[in-house]
């Protein structure tokens, strides 16, 4: 179970992404972060804190649950519904430059659902995608604008991002795929 990013690496990566946002983002106060539940939310908060430290600007942070927009809902013959959690975007996204934040970019289906969900909240000026890990294997025409780490994987493997806020530890591990 190789650890591909440890706590230190994750922290430096988030700081680097924050620097990129500050460099490219002007004017910075038009920006806001929206994290995809569940692990995109703490990552978005950490990026906001890093941006604040670098530029002195506090970007608003929202959290988005995409469950009700999934394209695989109720497509399985048997099985429970995924648990829906609360979406909380405490600011208007109209004319904002949004940074959509998730932990892993894989097929792109979560991002597709997130884009549909965001459009129901208003009309942002732009949406850029921020991910901690891009593991490839896209099934939709979606790409990330800010990538923490490109991680070549096989489809048999799974990438687990664990964060202090949720899992009590900061690490990214690749599991499975030995077969």
């Amino acid at each position, binding site marked *: 179970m190789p650890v591909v990013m440890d706590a230190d690496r994750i922290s430096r990566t988030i700081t680097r992404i924050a620097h990129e946002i500050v460099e490219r983002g002007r004017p910075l106060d038009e920006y806001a972060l929206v994290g995809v539940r*569940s692990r995109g939310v703490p990552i978005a908060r950490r990026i906001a804190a890093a941006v604040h430290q670098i530029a002195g600007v506090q970007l608003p942070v929202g959290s988005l649950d995409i469950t009700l927009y999934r394209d695989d809902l109720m497509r399985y*013959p048997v*099985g*429970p519904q995924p648990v*829906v959690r609360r*979406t909380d975007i405490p600011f208007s996204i109209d004319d904002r430059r949004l940074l959509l934040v998730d932990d892993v970019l894989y097929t792109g289906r979560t991002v597709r659902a997130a884009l549909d969900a965001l459009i*129901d909240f208003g009309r942002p000026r732009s949406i850029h995608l921020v991910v901690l890990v891009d593991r490839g294997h896209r099934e939709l025409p979606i790409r990330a604008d800010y990538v923490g780490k490109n991680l070549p994987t096989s489809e048999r493997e799974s990438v687990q991002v664990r964060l202090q806020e*949720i899992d009590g530890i900061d690490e990214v591990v690749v599991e499975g795929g030995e077969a």
Partner: protein
Amino acid sequence: MSTTTAVTTLRSRHLLSIADLSAEEIVLLLDTADAMKEIAARPIKKVPTLRGRTIVNLFYEPSTRTRTSFEIAEKRLSADTLSISVATSSVVKGETLVDTALNLEAMQPDMIVMRHASSGAHHLLTRVCKSHVINAGDGMHEHPTQALLDAYTIREKTGRIGGLKVAIVGDLLHSRVLRSDVLLLGKLGAEVWACAPPTLIPPGLDALGVRVTTSVEEAVRDADVVMMLRIQLERMQGNFFPSLREYFNVFGMTRERVRLAKPGAIIMHPGPMNRGVEIASDVADGPASVILEQVTNGVAVRMAVLYLLAGGEDERA
């Protein structure tokens, strides 16, 4: 992965009664309703979740609140819906429930929401239909979504349900809401008091774990929640009390009686209200009243029910 052991699904594919639900399933429904409630605050109050699903609302008894609430919940989840009021349907030509159900079933709806005067009608429907069946009130038996929205409102306002004293005052005899509320609040650990004139107390109520009293003061004293039930004049064929005026004088919820409850206690009523009979107008419209919030929450709770039941669609196939 999360280490929570809470349930994430309902065992039944129908919602017929609170009696069928476990405490964990009730909490799942309330938590899901919490997520659904936010949708109403969006500029576009709609999610695509039940696209392509057809839901029939079949109402054999009059209803404004419940039917409208279900319809809005269905539309917010993008289901296709149609509502049948029996007054304008073939039932007035003598069609039986089973025939009506079989004919509806032939048009392949995914869910049927039904209100019916008979307690067994929904079980009958589940035997002849493949659709998910939701009980929107069956005679004097149960009204599960009302109890869920009551519990949601109590939890939202007080932060908990376990350990609260809940006083329910009014027509206990004819109330399906009472039965569902008592079962639900009991499962979540509330202390439920029920109060009515002796003629309106159903036999065996204390066997459900309810403290039964004819003293409204005793019921309301130190309560966290005071819930009134409507005096159901349409179901009363006989003299249950001398007059509406006398009922109000002895059992009506007045400001003076509300003062016996805990400071900050909330006032609830499932509607429709008889002002000046079971509740004084200044109490119904007062700062402690959450009666209209119950209505708002009803939509979120029904969205949660529809969403959770819609899973595991083709297990019947």
